[in-house]
């Protein structure tokens, strides 16, 4: 599994509103790609296309190819649940389940089960239930990977709502990691957090890119500058500029990008 994403000729309409216009973009593995742009520019629409979250929006039409490891995720044969397992997503506001900390992480793996190697000709991979010990190990691994384990290990059975906002967000990240995705999408993950919680999430993002492809939508340009390897600037549904973050913030090639990042527009 590579985890690289190739987007070609992506167009999205919400009824007559052409929300994304012919977007072409390659997202590399082991990199953080930031999506920036003013409100309504299509950045959230774009990231939601990457794991077919727009499927649940009525009157939304998506055209174009989005390939993950060479497979078109919009192909009718694609299992959308499997797509969303492989491409995890964390949202703006932390949204833990009304369950215990342990159960928040254990829920999805228990539902999905564990993949086993195929046994015979023509048979696809089979799924097997986790044992309790395996679930416990997975919960611990996920919480450690999300840099939350040390803070919650003594209260695993407490409600997830007892955690602070930043901890809840890291719990959501741990929850997404528990199903072993290849790609992680973050839609403004720090907009509801204070600077300390934000710093922890940013450190975590940088750590996660070692193993995952990371895409982050952010309103905070300094956050994009701090964590992203590459940055894409969207404006009114067009991808205006995509390049190395340093280049975008030091010498953008497009006037619109310059105007946006310097606060002259937006």
């Amino acid at each position: 599994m590579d985890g690289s994403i190739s987007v070609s000729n992506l167009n999205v309409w919400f009824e007559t509103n052409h929300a994304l216009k012919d977007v072409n973009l390659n997202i590399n593995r082991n990199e953080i790609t930031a999506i920036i742009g003013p409100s309504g520019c299509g950045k959230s629409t774009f990231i939601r296309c990457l794991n077919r979250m727009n499927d649940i929006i009525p009157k939304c039409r998506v055209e174009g190819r989005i390939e993950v490891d060479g497979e078109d995720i919009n192909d009718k044969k694609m299992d959308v649940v499997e797509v969303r397992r492989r491409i995890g997503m964390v949202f703006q506001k932390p949204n833990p389940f009304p369950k215990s900390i342990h159960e928040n992480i254990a829920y999805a793996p228990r539902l999905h089960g564990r993949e086993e190697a195929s046994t015979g000709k023509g048979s696809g991979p089979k799924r097997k239930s986790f044992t309790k010990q395996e679930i416990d190990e997975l919960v611990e691994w996920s919480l450690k990977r999300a840099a939350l384990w040390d803070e919650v290990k003594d209260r695993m059975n407490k409600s997830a709502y007892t955690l602070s906002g930043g901890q809840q967000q890291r719990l959501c990240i741990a929850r997404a990691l528990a199903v072993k995705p290849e790609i992680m999408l973050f839609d403004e993950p720090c907009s509801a957090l204070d600077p300390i919680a934000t710093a922890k999430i940013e450190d975590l993002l940088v750590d996660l890119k070692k193993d995952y492809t990371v895409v982050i939508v952010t309103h905070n340009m300094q956050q994009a500058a701090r964590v992203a390897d590459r940055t894409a600037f969207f404006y009114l549904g067009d991808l205006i500029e995509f390049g190395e973050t340093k280049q975008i913030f030091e010498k953008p090639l497009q006037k619109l990008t310059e105007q946006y990042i310097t606060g002259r527009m937006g």
Partner: protein
Amino acid sequence: MTSRLVFQNELDKLNEEVASMAGLAVQAIETAVMCIVDKDARWKPEVERLDKEIYSLEQVIEKHCLDVIALHTPVASDLRTVSTCMKIITDLNRIGRYASDIVESYEVLAASNGFSRMVSIEHMAELVVGMVNDATQSFIKRDAESARELFQRDDEVDCLYDTTFRAVVTYMIEDPRKITAGTHIILVSRYLERIADHACNIGERVWYMVMGERLNPKDRKKDRESCNIDVQKEPVHYGSSHELEEK
């Protein structure tokens, strides 16, 4: 007032401060050259005052730049503007120091008649003041092309320095009594030549600020080949041999 407006006001203020510092630097060179060419001691304290004022302005502007970075986190062209301001105030401060160094030679040169006319010093000073003025204008007008042209003019100043150096050394060899004054003339012309280099540094920073890339070294290559003036045959810049004999 939106934060961009506040930021823009800060940038405008920064530009004004740098322009006014550059104005003082030009004034300092002009006054210093007047002091030694006209042998007028009244200008010496004025140059020293200007040097101090330039130095304190450097402190103020540097602090202002740091405040802007800390409070407004500039990026792209805004960041290049602030970093350019921080760099060129160092050049302007050095220019102020050189003006002060020039008037240090006042006593020696005033007591000497050997190089009384100092034609090339005046000519060099004229070129150098023009370069600093144009470097300042290129910063104010964000004019990358005129910033680059400074490098060609620097070649001319370098040639004048080489010519002065060789001519003065010739005179010193001819008459060892002129060694002290000659050395000071060489020092003054060296200071002027260094001021021209600082004007070029400013031009280089302006180029980066406007274009977002470093000036290609090939584009500022100096053509020292053209500087082939035979000083033995052309000592006329410094007055006739007869005048020098007088002293």
